[in-house]
């Protein structure tokens, strides 16, 4: 075997007394893709940033990071600068915040070229056009003067890639480059990265938490947990026969199981007809309404008792808005009947008796719990509103019961949200909804802020509670794997409208519309993406040197 391009030896990074990584070692050969997989807090991003020494000065290193035989840890700053963006470049997770919003595309890509190559003016423009063309931005000449906010999320990430590739690096570090993107766009970006990598023969260090992506893109994989690499190996054998307990745990963690069978004869609990949420666009001096943003545009649906309706769609499809409108958290037009009572047109006060029966669990467990209240006050708040006659001890009893139901110890009620992990917080949020013994619960992406292994636990918990109490769910998610594990019925939304609607099983097995097909393919089989959604990458446009 030839000497590796990058060789990390016994790297330990510590912040004061905290150790982010403990003596990790791995190699990347030329042209190889190595994936670093782990859950949040496993130290994978710190490792990625340490290769270019982009960590804050408080970080202390020991060990070696050898790039083409040169130790980057001891290298002086000017030499590092010559490496950064030239031999090794990086793509970050969130394309909006990693691009400077006040500079045009041309300027940002031109900057990289000017620093390392001294290429300026017309030469730089020519090269920028080549790059934009290579990353599949249609009509690049017209895009040169655009600012990042004028591009879509996928286009921004393409731009980041163009910047990273400007100097044909030998190694590309991609730190969760697709996490912030929708599934279909995710697939396009991965395909693009793979194609470009093969064409340029560069190596790639790919950081991700998503095992599905690893399977598709990586040659070798390193599994990280608690700052240590616990298992390393080629992707195929490692996935087929994991050795370490943690790897097995990760692989087993994908949400599994099937939704409980629902009774097709059960009465409909939620009935919605022609629901519209339109936000007016007002312009001019007199704030005249010029048009509407149609977040939810004429939705009809009904959910039977004990059933789970999955609502899937990409960001901006209006799925969360639909959930909010059902609970009258935002104003809407159209008929909403929940448990036989019309919801529309009621005053805030008249809504209150209904609210005990219809609850919501939010996406971000860090944002949905008030940081200043103890857990028993958070859970007990709804009780105080809906059952004001309960004595303090009765209320306490119910809070304890709700906590036990979501698998938390009763002592948890005296603590504050910040003392819990993400998964535990989401359990608290579920307990807050469940303590009122609702009949209908809207679950707004309750798992998407959580690590995979925790996602599976929360999905199991939700299914368990549903069976025990015969609850009706509306499950909103962009993650089809989770939806498949929970939903009986399915709605696929796009631009505020229903694209496809029916029994979840039928849709998963045989999607009817092109959009649903694309979604399914992107979610369950990343590599096989229909190129029709993606402007093709023309091979001719890459005479890079």
């Amino acid at each position, binding site marked *: 075997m030839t000497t590796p391009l990058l060789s990390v030896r016994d790297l330990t990074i510590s912040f004061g007394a905290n150790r982010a990584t403990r003596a990790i070692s791995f190699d990347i050969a030329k042209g190889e893709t190595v994936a670093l997989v782990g859950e949040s807090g496993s130290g994978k991003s710190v490792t990625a940033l340490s290769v270019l020494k982009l960590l804050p000065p408080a970080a202390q290193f020991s060990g070696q990071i050898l790039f083409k035989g040169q130790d980057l840890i001891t290298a002086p700053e000017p030499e590092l600068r010559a490496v950064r963006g030239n031999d090794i470049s990086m793509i970050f997770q969130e394309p909006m915040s990693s691009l400077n919003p006040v500079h045009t595309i041309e300027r940002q890509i031109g900057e990289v070229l000017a620093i390392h190559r001294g290429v300026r003016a017309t030469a730089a423009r020519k090269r920028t056009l080549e790059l934009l063309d290579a990353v599949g931005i249609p009509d690049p000449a017209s895009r040169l003067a655009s600012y990042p906010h004028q591009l879509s999320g996928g286009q921004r990430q393409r731009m980041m890639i163009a910047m990273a590739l400007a100097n044909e690096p030998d190694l590309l570090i991609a730190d969760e480059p697709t996490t912030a993107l929708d599934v279909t766009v995710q697939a396009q970006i991965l395909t693009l990265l793979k194609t470009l990598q093969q064409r340029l023969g560069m190596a790639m260090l790919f950081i991700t938490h998503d095992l599905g992506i690893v399977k598709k893109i990586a040659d070798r994989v390193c599994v990280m947990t608690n700052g240590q690499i616990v298992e390393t190996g080629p992707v195929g054998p490692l996935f087929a026969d994991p050795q370490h307990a943690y790897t097995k745990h990760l692989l087993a963690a994908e949400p599994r199981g099937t939704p409980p069978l629902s009774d097709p004869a059960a009465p409909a609990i939620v009935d919605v007809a022609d629901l519209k949420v339109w936000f007016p666009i007002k312009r001019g001096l007199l704030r005249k309404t010029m048009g509407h943003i149609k977040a939810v545009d004429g939705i009809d649906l009904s959910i039977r008792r004990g059933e789970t309706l999955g609502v899937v769609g990409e960001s901006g499809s209006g799925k969360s808005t639909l959930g909010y409108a059902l609970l009258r*958290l935002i104003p809407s037009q159209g008929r909403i009947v929940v448990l036989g009572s019309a919801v529309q047109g009621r005053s805030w006060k008249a809504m*209150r008796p209904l609210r005990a029966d219809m609850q919501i669990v939010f996406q971000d467990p860090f944002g*949905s719990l008030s940081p200043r*209240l103890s857990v028993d006050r958070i859970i007990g708040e*709804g009780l105080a509103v809906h059952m004001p006659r309960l004595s303090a*001890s009765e209320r306490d009893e119910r809070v304890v019961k709700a906590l036990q139901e979501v698998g938390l110890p009763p002592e948890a009620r005296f603590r504050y949200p910040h003392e819990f992990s993400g998964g535990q917080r989401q359990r608290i*949020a579920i307990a807050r909804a469940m303590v009122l013994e609702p009949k209908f619960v809207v679950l707004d992406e309750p798992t998407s802020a959580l690590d995979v292994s925790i996602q599976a636990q929360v999905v199991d918990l939700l299914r368990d509670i549903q069976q025990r109490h015969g609850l009706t769910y509306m499950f909103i998610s962009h993650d089809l794997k989770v939806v498949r594990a929970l939903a009986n019925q399915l709605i696929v939304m796009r631009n505020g409208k229903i694209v496809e609607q029916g029994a979840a099983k039928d849709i998963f097995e045989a999607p009817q519309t092109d959009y649903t097909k694309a979604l399914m393919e992107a979610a369950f089989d990343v590599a096989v993406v229909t190129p029709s959604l993606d402007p093709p990458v023309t091979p001719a446009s890459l005479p890079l040197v």
Partner: protein
Amino acid sequence: MTDQAQQAAVLEAPRNARLSPLNRRRWSNFKANRRGWWSLWIFLALFLATLGSEFISNDRPIMVSYKGELLFPAFVDYPESKFGGFLAVTNYRDEFVASDIAANGWAVWPPVHFSYQTVDGFLPYSGSVAPSWLIGWEEICARYPLQTADPNCNWGNYHWLGTDERGRDVLARLLYGFRISVLFGLTLTLFSSVIGVVAGAVQGYFGGWTDLLFQRFIEIWTSVPALYLLLIISSVIAPSFWVLLGILLLFSWVSLVGIVRAEFLRGRNFEYIAAARALGVSNLTIMFRHLLPNAMVATLTFMPFILSGSVVTLTSLDLLGFGLPPGSPSLGELLAQGKNDLQAPWLGLTGFFTIAIMMTLLVFIGEAVRDAFDPRKSMG
């Protein structure tokens, strides 16, 4: 129930007197700022001392034993008939009363025998008298019937900071003046904070037209020249403590509205607010329980500065002669006298140093509070 309560108590116990970790960190940040920490203690000591001004400087004894009866003249107004006189209120400094008490018991006097409006009748010369330590005992006691041998020629009648032109003791006026300034400032701060927070909360929480109309109103309101209006009003209405407070309150409440409004505007989009709304919690409860704690940091940070601002406003009105009613002890009036009587530098200097020290202490405390609440410091 008791079992649960015990369990609760056990679990609560290690949490350091129910102070959340964040607040504990803020408190230690505040303590770490030595300047602010000492300023707080000095200011508190001065404030507490002046709260008991009656026991430091008064023209009547704290306690009197008269014919076997214990009397507390500092708290109770006894008619002079009690001591064989005929006035409605006893003048304990009067030679006749003093000798009567001395003959039939004893009296405990505060260290300084003057109240803020006591006029010393035995001053060596007319006009402002210099601090007693600048002139000898002979001169101080020149007007007493027995000169230096007079029983009234004692430390209690010593003018540590001199007198003003009406023969009133400057130290006594300073003590009472400091107290009323701080009390006025605190009351004004409290009321304007309450009104400001409520107004800001309503604007920020409801937004839309409420916010828009309220903001335009505040813009118009703050463009009213407050000082001129104050001068006009106080020339029509006889200013008392509460009237003055009310007038100043008309304009001081707006200072907090902006910050609180911004905090509420930001906070009302949090998911836990949406969660509370989905639970059916009333708007008022949401505002108080969930949103107000967020706005409190900004409010508390501003409070010391509002306090010092209020004190300055009162002082400046007093200086101009539109403040507290004539005769009240006030720092502004002391400064005005010092300005008019440059031959008596002790007036101006006393007023200047008192206000300068008070403001410095308040600003130091305010800085320490601001730093303690700084999220960049309390997070790291």
